[in-house]
């Protein structure tokens, strides 16, 4: 992961954390505020309900008392007070009276508790309301909740009882209002709130008994568990219900138990507060947080880009400079200004590369001097050998001038022959140096390396088995499907010939010469191995240096030429050698050599240098001379 990426992620995570913490904090605060507001609304609504409940209760009491005080009721009471009174004539009175007094429930009940007339259940005449006959001062009771049996089933009523006493007989007037959706409709509810009423009229929870201002509550079963709790233990409680998977459908409820005269649970008022606004606000906060995060990400991206660029640009330049140095450009410089650590590092880097360049030039100069010295030594060595016979021959000629003409003639002939021979030798030496200096540019064409190898081996066929020469067994392992490469066949032939000659020289007592070809990734690999005495590691290191030789009469140019040819083809050459086992040269030639302006040796023939395309692999065993 780059420094820029790290910086970006650090910035982003920090931003996410901070935005998340802020959003969560705002959400919690907002939720608390809404909860407080909902609680206040619920309390206000409960207070409103209780106030409305009391007001209606008082109203019911007044209306029932009004019925009791009416002339018709008093007349009925008087009539019913007579012996053998006929109650049947009043059987339909409750209906009309209840309508005129706008009461949902009205019963005229005789002193024995028998219903004379009932509005809510006209057919129930004659049946008894035993609870009325218990001693009770109904005028002090006021209104109360009661489960009322009606023709359509039980209902919840806000009831009042009044009595008309004639003699020792009472006429009870039991009237009331139905507590249901009409009652809920009369409540003024704030937006987002609603009031539900559960009428506890059945032994177990019945969804149809849960009503709101519009009728039966849909999905009322979801409130069953809370209603059951109220049924078990009537008390005020709050809870939340999610109607659907959508969080906005959640609703907070405040439950208020409604109890009758005997403290029995008759109903539960549920004040519901929609959580839609809270959820919307939370959603809004979340959206805002996401927007901030998104903007923060963009900003972070830009900032990290800018910041990272500002921080990493000099680092990158330093890395680039280091890479250039590693690639050989020791003169690379880093353009970083500033007095900060990176600037100081860049200054140190530049100073280092400057020193490296200077030291490299000094080294090259030293190597060049050394090379010239080596060349001079080799030249002196090569030239000294023919010069000494030349000098001796000339001195013999000078001494022979004083001898007889016949002797002089003999000496002269012998001397001139020697002179010519040595001069020829000198010419050869000069020619070899000249050849190395004149290495031609490769003329590329399609070449099958196997053909070149076979051509070289054909030249040496006669020598492998010749009498008086060490017995050498050639082995060819040539891959038949070798790809054709772009190369100069003549130069390749010369390089391979040099390597074969080297191998034959390395096996004075005979051995096995093996040549093998393979291919890999479009390149052709050629290996030439011998079973000679092997090379020492230091010899391997200098093997491709021009004019370096391990042989008594070598010029030290053969492997340099080989290395030059391989390099000119864009290939690589390496050597592996193990003392007592043998030496292997590995050449890898690309299918098509890269374009090069000029080979290194042609630039500066006189400046021997270690070619970048050659390498020596050292065996672990101590090396021994032999190559």
């Amino acid at each position: 992961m780059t420094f820029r990426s790290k910086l970006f992620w650090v910035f982003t995570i920090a931003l996410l954390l901070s935005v998340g913490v802020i959003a969560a904090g705002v959400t919690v605060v907002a939720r608390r505020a809404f909860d407080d507001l909902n609680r206040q609304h619920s309390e206000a609504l409960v207070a409103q309900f209780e106030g409305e409940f009391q007001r209606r209760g008082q109203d019911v009491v007044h209306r029932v008392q009004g019925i009791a005080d009416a002339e018709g009721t008093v007349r009925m009471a008087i009539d019913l007070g007579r012996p053998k009174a006929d109650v049947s004539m009043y059987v339909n009175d409750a209906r009309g009276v209840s309508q005129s007094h706008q009461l949902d429930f009205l019963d005229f009940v005789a002193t024995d508790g028998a219903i004379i007339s009932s509005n809510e259940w006209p057919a129930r005449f004659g049946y008894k309301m035993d609870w009325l006959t218990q001693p009770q001062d109904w005028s002090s009771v006021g209104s109360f909740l009661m489960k009322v049996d009606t023709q359509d089933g039980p209902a919840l009523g806000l009831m009042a009882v009044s009595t008309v006493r004639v003699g020792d007989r009472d006429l009870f007037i039991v009237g009331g209002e139905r507590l249901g959706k009409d009652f809920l409709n009369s409540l003024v509810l704030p937006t987002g709130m609603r009031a539900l009423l559960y009428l506890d009229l059945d032994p177990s929870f019945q969804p149809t008994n849960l009503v709101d201002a519009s009728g039966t509550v849909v999905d009322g079963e979801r409130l069953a568990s809370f209603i059951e709790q109220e049924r078990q233990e009537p008390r005020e409680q709050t809870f939340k219900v999610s109607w659907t998977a959508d969080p906005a459908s959640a609703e907070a409820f405040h439950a208020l138990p409604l109890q009758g005269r005997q403290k029995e649970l008759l109903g539960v008022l549920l004040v519901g507060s929609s959580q839609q606004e809270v959820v919307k606000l939370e959603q809004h906060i979340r959206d805002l947080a996401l927007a901030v995060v998104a903007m923060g990400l963009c900003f972070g991206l830009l900032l990290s880009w800018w910041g990272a660029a500002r921080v990493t640009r000099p680092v990158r330049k330093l890395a680039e400079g280091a890479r250039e140095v590693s690639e050989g450009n020791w003169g690379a410089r880093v353009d970083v200004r500033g007095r900060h650590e990176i600037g100081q590092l860049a200054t140190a880097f530049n100073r280092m590369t400057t020193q490296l360049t200077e030291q490299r030039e000094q080294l090259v100069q030293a190597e060049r001097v050394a090379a010239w010295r080596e060349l001079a030594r080799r030249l002196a060595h090569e030239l000294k050998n023919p010069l000494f016979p030349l000098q001796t021959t000339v001195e013999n000629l000078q001494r022979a001038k004083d001898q007889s003409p016949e002797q002089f003639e003999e000496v002269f002939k012998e001397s001139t022959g020697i002179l010519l021979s040595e001069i020829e030798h000198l010419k050869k030496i000069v020619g070899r140096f000249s050849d190395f200096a004149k290495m031609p540019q490769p003329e590329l064409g399609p070449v099958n390396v196997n053909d070149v190898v076979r051509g070289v081996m054909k030249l040496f066929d006669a020598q492998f088995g010749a009498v008086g020469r060490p017995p050498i067994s050639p082995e060819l392992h040539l891959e038949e499907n070798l790809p054709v490469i772009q190369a100069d066949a003549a130069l390749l032939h010369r390089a391979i010939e040099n390597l074969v000659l080297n191998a034959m020289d390395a096996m004075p007592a005979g051995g096995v010469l093996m040549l093998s070809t393979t291919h890999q990734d479009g390149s052709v690999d050629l290996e030439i191995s011998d079973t000679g005495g092997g090379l020492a590691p230091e010899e391997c290191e200098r093997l491709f240096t021009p004019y370096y030789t391990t042989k008594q009469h070598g010029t030290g140019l053969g492997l340099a030429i080989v290395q030059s040819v391989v390099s000119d083809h864009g290939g690589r050459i390496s050597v592996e050698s193990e003392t007592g086992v043998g030496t292997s040269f590995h050449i890898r030639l690309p299918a098509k050599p890269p374009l090069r302006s000029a080979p290194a040796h042609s630039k500066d023939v006189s400046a021997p240098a270690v070619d970048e395309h050659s390498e020596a692999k050292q065996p672990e065993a101590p090396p021994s001379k032999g190559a």
Partner: protein
Amino acid sequence: MKLRSCLFLAAISVALFHTGRVESSRRPRYGGTVRVEVGAVLHSLDPAGAPADPDEASAKNEIDALLYDQRNPDGTFAGVAGSGAFHIAEWESGKHVTLAANENYRGGRAFVDSIDIEMGRAAKDRLLDLEVGKADFAEIPPEEARHAAERGVRVSTSLPEELVALVFVAGHSIAEDAHAREALARSIDRAAIVNFILQKEGEPAGGLLPQWSNGTAFLFSTAADAVGAKDLWSQISGSPRIVLGYDSGDSLGQAIAERVAVNARDAGIVLSAEPIASPEPSPPRYDARLVRLRITSSRPREALVSFQSGLPAIAGLDASPLPAAASSEQIYERERAVVSGYRVVPLVWLPRVYGLGARVRDWKAPVAGEGWPFVDVWLEQESQ
């Protein structure tokens, strides 16, 4: 004289005594038009067509009785229209019909010149018109008789001649349970229905025929037995429920059905009273229904036969004919056979209640099978 005849004459006498509003102190006078209001709406007086609606059939029957002179044993009329005491003077379908007195009626011309019958008048409107003198004659519901009398309307009540009964629908599982049928029959407090709902205009019915008809009605129990009903109902397995249907336009039927439901509830029977939609669904949703059957003859055998044929086929009763000369005992046995299975549960007997205007004189409440006796009615002059 047979027991049946004696009982019949006694019943007639009692009825006449109760209705005793015979205006014999004044001399009859001719002339005038009797203004009659009926609730039914008739669109035809064709003798071949009998309306399906009981009220319409009853009204048509009353008018036909005024138009025709002869009547067949089965209750249908013979001869030509106009051979009776009146003939049709005006006819406006569905609204009113005016009958004019037949000058040549063999029984003698009626005292009134005409009868103007207005159709489609609701019960409360009829009662109101009687109160204000806008109508001279109208039938009023029995349960309103007491109320009408309190408001000053002259009321004439016939002998009980309409049976309200509860009939179980054959084939319904609960209706096929004898215990369930008997439990419901025992739970019903018929006296309360008569006293409260009918305002004492009627009689509890234990059998099919009223006491004045065959004289054996007292042999059938009408007492409620909630405890026995509860015991019987408790023997029924499962959680059965009875749906009791009543005609949606029948307010009296509704009141009785709801009272039956209250009685049943008191006995632990789960019963709901529901109006029967029109047209009736097939098969019916109700397990039992209330029916109102009117006696078409003062003779008990014919009355019982007409009941048997009139009872809905849903009851699945034995419809074998009674002998033509069936004795009272045979009639009683047949009646007992019908009632003892509790497939038909008689509830109450209803009289016909007539409201009379102040100027109507010599009105005699007709007995079962007879039409309105307008031949003998005369109108007192307004000035008097």
